[in-house]
């Protein structure tokens, strides 16, 4: 919009082309975003199998949820997987971005190569990783064996399963975060580096003393996005440990080691057709994410006031 826009008051009605132009988003959001959100809140107070009558049960679903050890297990799993994936993802991304930033040749080739995992079908990726982590015939165990290390049952040991899921996520999101960091790095003025060089700083020192501090707002942004993303992780576990049996699918694999909160929600709502309880779980997930957002917010505030 230009600064020379007329100051005269126009009637609201005359703005209809503009409203029309932005309406598709709001219409779609209302139908596929707002309505399901509100309806799920309504559902959380009912018992419903998707076809029959809804039965009002008050706070029963939430009461059950608080005592549901499986839900708390899913919560712990989700945090473990989130931690195991976010920390390496962001560390690798930062290093890769720094290397991309100083690359001289084929820069766009590298950028595309690192971004490709992010747009690859997650199902295909998870199936591939399932083969890589296979106990007896997987690539990882083959390496361990040649190195003389003991074999790990990646897909049946509860901790190994979390590592398997976390590596899928790391693989997928490292390039994406690296591209974001790269954008931030390119905004850092080069005279800072030149000044540092004159003062005798090496590349490692420049990275830790200039690049990382200057990138702080961007790092914070990626932490928040990774948190929101990680707390809702679902597909990785679903595909890696999804349908081992026809009778009991999507329970998160052996020992429920890879059961995440959203997978548990999916299992209750769409496998057991227990939509009321599923809705209650999804609201619990929402509360957990709100809690995290508040913690993040507090951290940012403190940083700003320091």
């Amino acid at each position, binding site marked *: 919009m230009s600064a020379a826009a007329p100051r005269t008051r126009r009637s609201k009605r005359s703005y209809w082309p503009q409203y029309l132009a932005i309406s598709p988003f709001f219409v779609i959001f209302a139908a596929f975003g707002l309505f399901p959100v509100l309806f799920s809140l309504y559902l959380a107070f009912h018992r419903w199998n998707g076809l029959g009558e809804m039965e009002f049960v008050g706070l029963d679903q939430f009461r059950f949820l608080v005592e549901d050890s499986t839900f708390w297990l899913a919560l712990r799993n989700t945090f473990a997987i989130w931690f195991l994936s976010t920390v390496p993802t962001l560390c690798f991304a930062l290093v890769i971005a720094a290397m991309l930033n100083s690359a001289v040749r084929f820069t766009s080739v590298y950028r595309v190569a690192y971004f490709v995992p*992010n747009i690859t079908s997650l199902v295909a990726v998870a199936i591939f990783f399932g083969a890589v982590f296979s106990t007896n015939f997987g690539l990882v165990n083959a390496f361990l064996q040649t190195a003389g290390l003991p074999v790990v049952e990646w897909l049946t040991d509860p901790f190994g399963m979390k590592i398997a899921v976390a590596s899928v996520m790391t693989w997928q999101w490292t390039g994406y975060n690296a591209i974001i960091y790269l954008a931030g790095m390119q905004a850092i003025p080069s005279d800072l580096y030149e000044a540092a060089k004159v003062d005798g700083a090496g590349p490692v020192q420049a990275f830790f003393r200039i690049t990382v501090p200057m990138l702080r707002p961007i790092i914070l942004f990626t932490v928040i996005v990774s948190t929101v993303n990680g707390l809702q992780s679902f597909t990785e576990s679903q595909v890696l440990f999804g349908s081992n049996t026809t009778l009991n699918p999507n*329970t998160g694999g052996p020992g429920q080691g890879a059961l995440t909160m959203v997978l548990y929600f999916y299992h209750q709502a769409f496998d057991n057709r227990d939509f009321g309880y599923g809705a209650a779980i999804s609201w619990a997930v929402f509360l957990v994410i709100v809690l995290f957002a508040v913690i993040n917010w507090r951290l940012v505030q403190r940083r700003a006031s320091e």
Partner: protein
Amino acid sequence: MELSRRRILQLGMFGVAGLATGGTAACSTSASGGSGGDKAMDLWYWADGLSKKVVDEAVTRFTEVELRPQQIGGNFKEKLVTTMSSGGTFIPDITGIKGEDFASFTPQADRFHNLLELGADKLASQYLPWKWKKGMTKDGKLIGFPIDIGPTAHFYRRDVYAQAGLPSEPDKVASQMSTWEDYFAAGVELKKAVPNAFIVSEAWAVYNVAVGQANARYIDESERFIGDQDHIRKAWDLAVRATQLGINAKTKAGTPDWNAGLAGGTLASLTGASWVAVDIQSAAKDTTGKWGVAAGPGGTANIGGSFLAIPKECQKPDVAFKIISWILSPENQAKGFTDSALFPSTPATYTMPALTSPSEFLGGQIPAQVLGPAAQKIPAQYESPNDQAVSAPFAIELGNIEASGKDPNTAWADAVAEAKRVGQRLGVK
């Protein structure tokens, strides 16, 4: 240079776009058109849920309607429930319902036509009685018309059994391993003779079949929880015993390890439904002729096996029923077996040429000679709409015993307590 707000916003949009691509990558839908005249009749099924050849023939045969068969991919139940709860014109006129999902539809029997009122009672004698009963509600309405069944049997590697000094001919295998105890004893011998060879693939393969061999499941007909009783405990103890004897490979079905075990001979036997043979064949193509099938230990059970139903929205239920009963007639079920490995629910089919030809993969054996008699010995079990939800804790706790060596008695107590809690939430007494 400071990072501007616009830049942050740009990055934010980028992030949201990235999340959206990640989140939707796993979903694929195949929508169906709801247009067409009054003559249109939609039939929903899944790949290999019916013989495609028979369905195509039905399209040209029944010209009083325009039959439009659609193979629905992905989670079939989810799509059917969503469509039916939204109401309207997209609801199919005829739909398949998978065996494991069927019980969960019975509380909404009024959403389907009672097939007995459309003349199904005259056909009852052609179908296996226990399967026919499975398609009925407690108050005697027939809403599911039998497609196929999944009689269980004992699939085994002839060469590996022979190597271990065990019998390798089906008759002898069946008589020596007629009980679970004898089957496990053979497993111990096998392990001794052939290192790394297991007779049990996973605890679930024993437990699920053993539960199916009983006369009741987790919930009785008055919707009371009975999962803590002896019939379930017996199946549980068998699965635990197999694990304690060290003859359990703890390999989940369908995983790369499972495929490799079947191909390499370390998984020397599987107890499962008739369609397991198809799974083995696709996992281990190179083992053609090395497999055999024998009557399973401890009797037979049924796993899976589907139904066709006619939702209430169908305008011409009499025509729909005519189509269903033709597609699933004993003659056409023979084609279903040939084309899609659907084991017939009609005993008359078991003696037809399609089922009496020897299977090259099973070493020239005629599988129906084992599975046919087995199919007729399957106990009729009442399956509650909440059966699946209540059974989940048992599967999970068995998995805990396998994965982390949890104490079996603690695991049992936890499974029962959790099943009761889940049942209570769902209204089980």
